[in-house]
């Protein structure tokens, strides 16, 4: 039996996620869209905290909410004149997109509700979720160690930095 606070928190988060997701893709002002995205990301971070993944939640807030959304905002401001709405999307296109998205949701949802018995598991206790453990596994070369992907991602980031510089540089 969950604590009530946890439950309430869950519902608030779920509501924020659902509503803000929908708003993100339906609003005609792109800056707003980015802002709704920010709310969704925060809500996601809350889920991570709920799951006891504090570090992940922190990363989510720092990188996603703090970094990426800011990038988006910059990009939007660079490419858009403020106050100018996006063009209305043709209804046929909207309907097609909606149908596809709803169908997808329906199929997946049907699958979830009808087959997935594992979906009704309870949350188990986790013993150790400290930063030391995470750091240990992240830099470990043993079995289940994540050093190689870690390095790969660092190289990727480097490449990305260089790429960003090259692309954005004025000729």
């Amino acid at each position, binding site marked *: 039996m969950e604590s009530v606070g946890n439950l309430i928190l869950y519902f608030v988060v779920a509501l924020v996620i659902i509503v803000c997701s929908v708003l993100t893709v339906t609003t005609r002002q792109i800056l707003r869209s980015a802002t709704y995205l920010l709310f969704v990301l925060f809500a996601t971070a809350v889920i991570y905290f709920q799951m006891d993944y504090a570090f992940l939640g922190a990363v989510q807030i720092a990188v996603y909410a703090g970094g990426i959304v800011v990038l988006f905002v910059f990009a939007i401001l660079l490419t858009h004149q403020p106050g100018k709405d996006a063009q209305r999307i043709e209804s046929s296109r909207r309907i097609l997109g909606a149908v*596809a998205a709803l169908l997808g949701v329906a*199929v997946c949802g049907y*699958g979830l509700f009808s087959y997935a018995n594992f979906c009704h598991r309870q949350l188990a206790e986790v013993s150790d979720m400290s930063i030391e453990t995470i750091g240990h596994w992240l830099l470990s070369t043993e079995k289940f160690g994540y050093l190689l992907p870690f390095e790969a991602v660092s190289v990727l980031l480097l490449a990305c930095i260089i790429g960003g510089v090259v692309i954005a540089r004025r000729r």
Partner: protein
Amino acid sequence: MPLSYTIAVIAIPLLMFFFLGLAGVKMDKKLTGVLGVIGMLITTVIAYGVALTYFFGSDQGQVADGVRQAVVVFNPDWLSFTKTLVVRMGIMLDPIAAMMLIVITTVSLMVHLYSLGYMCDHHGHAEKGFQRYYAFLALFTFSMLGLVVATNLFQIFIFFEMVGLSSYLLIGFYYQSPAAVHASKKAFIVTRLADLFFLLGIMILSYYTGTFDFDQLVFGPNGANSLEVAQSAIATGGGATFLGCSVMAWALTFIFIGGAGKSAMYPLHIWLPDAMEGPTPVSALIHAATMVVAGVFLVARLFPLYVIEQGAMEIICVVGAFTAFYAAAIACVQSDIKRALAFSTVSQIAFMMTSLAVSSADGGLIEIHGGHGLGFMASMFHLFTHAMFKALLFLCAGAIIHAVHSNENSKMHGLHKYMPITSIAFLIGCLAIAGIPPFAGFWSKDEILVACYAKGTGWGIWMSMVAGMTAFYMFRIYFLIFHWKKHEVHTEHAPSDQPWTMTLPLIILATISIVAGFVPAHDLVTWDGKELHTQLNWTVAGSSVLIACIGIGLAFKMYYKENELPDKLQARFSGLWEAAYRRFYMDELYQFITHKVIFQGICKPIAKFDRGIIDGFFNLLASVTGSAAYGIRRLQNGSIQSYVYVYLVGALALAVITMVCVLI
């Protein structure tokens, strides 16, 4: 003089060609001409030395048992088809080759000298392309000499092509004139067509006999023409036949066609009159004296083979006799002096051909062994004399043309007073060709007629008649040019005899034309290398002189003084006259065949077929592929959203299928 010096005779003109052609461009024009003449003079001296040594010297091993042998001085391999079938490039002297050396070098030297004057304008400045002209003359001389000393049939073919080339280049010397270009092209292509047959003939002959060499085809062990060797060569055909004739007959007929092309036999004569577009000395050298007798020379070379293969010989005989008459008939009405002379040449060469052809039949095979073969000797003799007097006539014509700047009779008339030397030289030439004793033509033509009568009286009468026509048309030309009426001087300079460079050759050739008949040809150029005992046949000689006189008399009556008779006759027989003037429409026929049938009927459709059908097929293939690709391209429209959409639909479909499967 050692016979091996013949190499020099061949080599000097070739070197002159390269020297004048390459270095001559930078040199003074006149100098190149003088160099050309000097080179030719040296060649001539050596050629005379060699030929006289061959005929009269005794220490060169060329005479054995009273038989003049063929001497091969030089014979390296040039191209090996197989181990045994090898083309060699050699030098061989036998009576006819030695005689040809003299003919070619003499006429060539005269023409070289004459051109010094002829190829200049009235102020004595050399024409454009002077050195080119001399280079080509040297090339021609080289080719022609190479042809006559050939040791094998293939070498003759090679030099056939080479003389064809030099002829092409010289006819087209004035390459800026369309007529000259057209004429040179025509000459080359017609002779090429004939050479194709020549080649086929060689192919057949060599396939069966396995050799090109004359010493295996026609020369016997004693080095002279031998019927036994020819017989065995023919026999290698093994009786193989094609369309009812033996393959050897086909081969020899084809080879004759090759010769007929060069020698302008009907119906391959059409190029020769047009070839007169070239400079007149060139016409004298190539198209009167030397190259055009290459065909006669070729048949004479293979004489024993033709003797054995009588069928081919009959064809030559008929073609020769017909051409002689046909060309003479046309020559009677031509108004262009060079054209008339050209047809005269055709007619005279046909005389030689006929003479060769009747030779084998004058009494049959056995009697040839007994010492006949008169026709062969007569033909070669006529070749020799004709070369001299026809060259003379052409050079005279050149002098006249140079003086009045026209080829047409109507622009000449009454020139005797202005150009006495030319007039006399021309008259000597006319008398020689008409066969009036003691001029050269009489002796040789008389023997030809004797040979013809020996084959059959009909042949003899026919040829006598042609001889009469010869006398008529030659004197017609002579009277029209030098008499007829007073000359109207159009230009500021009255026509006159030309400078000494041009007059000297006329005098020399006129002298030769007078005395050449006394050359003892029957001792020197016989088919089997033995002496041939002949004597004047008084009946034939008398009648032919009589016929010639009638011809001359007729010409005198019609053309000596201006009168109405020729016009009346022309009006009376206008159809015939027109046909003869238009050369019996042979050119039109060829024009039709080449342009309408081959060009429009074959080439154009083939080209269209290629572009339309064949290329069209590949283009169709390409465009089908292309449009298929365009169709498929719609799917790859580059819009990421449509990709995602399609992807999503696919993924959902898969999900649904999976679920349905699980359900079931």
